[in-house]
């Protein structure tokens, strides 16, 4: 049993600052004196603790003292066998998870609405994706989680797959039946990885969906910086009971910086302490603020701030009620329009806006005053700009047709073709479409007539189509035969 009141990296850094060392090491800004403009913006104290590894502060690549202690404390707090402090964002954690279970040519089962970082990991390690169709809530235009039946089917067709990656919760707050899904994959000898970027709070709050470690997963990536209070770019990679911790550290060290930032590491350490000690009340407050905002926003009319009622026991098994996801189509505006008006006219920056929805992140750092501003501004936007309802575009899931590995297509010779003339070619790049945030094409997939039609249709409907080099999405890079 660890003493969660400790924050060894944070404390060591505080001590280091008060010890007033003379520095003849990097960084060369030397406590900000070498870059006073930056110091004036960030604060001199911040510059003084931006230091490099040294004996009293341990070393992220081979931790033996304070960083190792911070890992052990974090592991206990998250109910994991080990926790790695990650300074390259959750992207680096997701990539390390995949690379630690898949080698060149191995198969991995993924939901199609997987984060780009996962597919990029396949480019690096040469593994082959097997995609599962995430359900779509047609009314809201959002992609959902994974169903038991869909995973069963994917396993039946690909009994040789090495691992399954789950995306839980989704950006919008939708969760899968993680416990049963993990058990199913494990029964078939597959490793279970969870992209839990938006689920840090599941480990600490009451009455929230199950966390990956509690569900028995092998590995999980949690974005401590998203909902846990640490600095942007800091995350944890959590390991379950059977994980080979030393091997995973080797994998992490393949691509991780050797100059891990102490600003990031100390923020992880002290944020973990805060959540371990106060997490229940922190997330109870978050939930209270979110539930209040949801009720008030639904009273305005025209907006639909959804929660657990969208659950169907399958692809939407549970909902993370700390998420404030709001459907805007009933008042005649696209989510992205509401997102822009909030920022430009009301100085309110929310997390995300797509064709049909907006997402606001609420945390214990918010006060009622801010919540009232958001609610009042949404009321005003409806009063001033509201129109009659517009329907969502119809979207059918287009099953991908992979013909090459992401890695092979990434490194192949390429040529650029107009999208309209690309039928039958193999895509060398991504095409993403928001909503619902599901890739239309990933590197190595055959471009079909249906896909070309879908891209045209989505563009016409005002979806945000991203990925290709060509921002207008008139052209696409394909593999040269």
């Amino acid at each position: 049993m660890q003493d969660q009141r400790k924050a060894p990296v944070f404390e060591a850094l505080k001590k280091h600052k008060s010890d007033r060392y003379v520095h003849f090491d990097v960084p060369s800004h030397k406590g900000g004196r070498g870059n006073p403009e930056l110091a004036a913006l960030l604060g001199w104290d911040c510059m003084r603790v931006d230091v490099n590894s040294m004996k009293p502060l341990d070393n992220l690549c081979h931790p033996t003292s304070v960083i190792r202690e911070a890992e052990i404390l974090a592991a206990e707090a998250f109910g994991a066998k080990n926790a790695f402090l990650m300074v390259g964002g959750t992207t680096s954690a997701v990539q390390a998870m995949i690379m630690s279970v898949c080698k060149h040519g191995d198969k991995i089962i993924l939901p199609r609405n997987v984060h780009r970082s996962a597919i990029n990991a396949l480019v690096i390690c040469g593994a082959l994706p097997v995609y599962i169709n995430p359900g779509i809530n047609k009314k809201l235009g959002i992609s959902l989680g994974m169903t038991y039946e869909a995973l069963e089917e994917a396993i039946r067709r690909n009994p040789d797959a090495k691992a399954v990656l789950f995306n839980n919760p989704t950006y919008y707050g939708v969760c899968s039946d993680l416990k049963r899904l993990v058990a199913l994959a494990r029964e078939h000898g597959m490793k279970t990885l969870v992209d839990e970027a938006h689920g840090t709070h599941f480990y600490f709050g009451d009455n929230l969906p199950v966390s990956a470690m509690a569900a028995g997963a092998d590995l999980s990536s949690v974005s401590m910086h998203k909902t846990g209070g640490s600095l942007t770019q800091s995350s944890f990679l959590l390991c379950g009971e059977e994980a080979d911790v030393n091997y995973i550290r080797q994998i992490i060290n393949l691509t991780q910086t050797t100059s891990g930032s102490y600003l990031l590491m100390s923020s992880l350490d002290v944020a973990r302490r805060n959540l371990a000690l106060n997490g229940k009340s922190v997330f109870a407050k978050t939930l209270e603020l979110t539930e209040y905002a949801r009720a008030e926003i639904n009273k305005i009319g025209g907006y639909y701030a959804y929660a657990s009622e969208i659950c169907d026991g399958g692809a939407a098994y549970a909902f993370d009620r700390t998420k404030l996801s709001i459907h805007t189509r009933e008042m005649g505006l696209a989510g992205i329009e509401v997102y822009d008006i909030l920022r430009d006219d009301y100085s309110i920056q929310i997390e995300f806006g797509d064709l049909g929805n907006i997402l606001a992140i609420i945390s214990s750092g918010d006060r009622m005053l801010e919540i009232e501003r958001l609610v009042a501004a949404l009321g005003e936007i409806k009063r001033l700009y509201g129109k009659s309802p517009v329907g969502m575009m119809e979207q059918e899931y287009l099953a991908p047709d992979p013909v090459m590995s992401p890695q092979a297509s990434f490194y192949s010779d390429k040529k650029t073709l107009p999208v309209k003339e690309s039928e039958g070619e193999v895509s060398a790049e991504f095409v993403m479409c928001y909503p619902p945030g599901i890739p239309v094409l990933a590197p190595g997939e055959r471009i079909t007539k249906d896909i070309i039609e879908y891209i045209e249709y989505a563009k016409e409907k005002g979806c945000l189509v991203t990925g290709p080099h060509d921002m207008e999405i008139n052209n696409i890079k394909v593999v040269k035969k």
Partner: protein
Amino acid sequence: MSMTDLWFHEDHSEGVRFQIKIDKHLCSLHSEFQRLDIFETVELGKMLVLDGILMITEKDEFVYHEMMVHVPMAVNPDIKSVLVIGAGDGGTVKRLTEYKGIEKIVVAEIDKLVVDKCKQFFPDLTVGFDDKRVKLVYEDGLKYVRNFEGAFDLIIVDSTDPFGPGEGLFTREFYGNCHKALGVNGILVNQHESPFYDSYKDTVTKTHEKLKAFFPICQVYQAHIPTYPSGHWLFGFSSKKYDGTDIKKEKWEENKIACQYYNTDLHKGAFALPNYTKELLR
């Protein structure tokens, strides 16, 4: 007998400090929203301070409160229903209750502690709270006002500065909701900060711009308030119909309200602004 050398100071800008000699510290409390202090000063009577910023002194509160109330009341003497946002010290409400024609005064003050302590230490200023026409609601003004449509003839925003609990009362969403809550004859009067120091100037410009987005008539008038930063203070007069300088002089004088600062001549003059202030409002 010599006095203890006790001084309160407030920085009016980074390089200018204002000091008031204190006789006694009467009260010091924290509410959910802010810290509240009440002092007995040597020259200015009792003084209310919120989060270290001077709100009122007994000696000069009349300037601010008279100018917030009598200006709109002289423009539209038929005002019947008034919403006051903030104003926990009672000064604005006291002046409103002097008008027999007003039928309803709702006060939305976020912090009950301000009202309770002002009742205790400023009994003369808070008499208005006992008037039968006055309804006190302890709620964030931004939240309260969004529940109404066309319900008020006058809204007075008697707020603190745009940081701390008053910040929501300087926003576009708040002014939009005020516009909605006002009837077709509606007038909005707001505390508009000072044009003098750089740290306040920006708020003057931005607040005026936000109001202009909703009200066809947006004017600014001024008063001389000795204890506020620079002493030069502004008020916003925004209205759906009335020009702020179009006074119903005789009708207003029928009210026979005794004033220390306000008179109808001064009313007209208050809308004549110095060039450096006009510059900020262009």
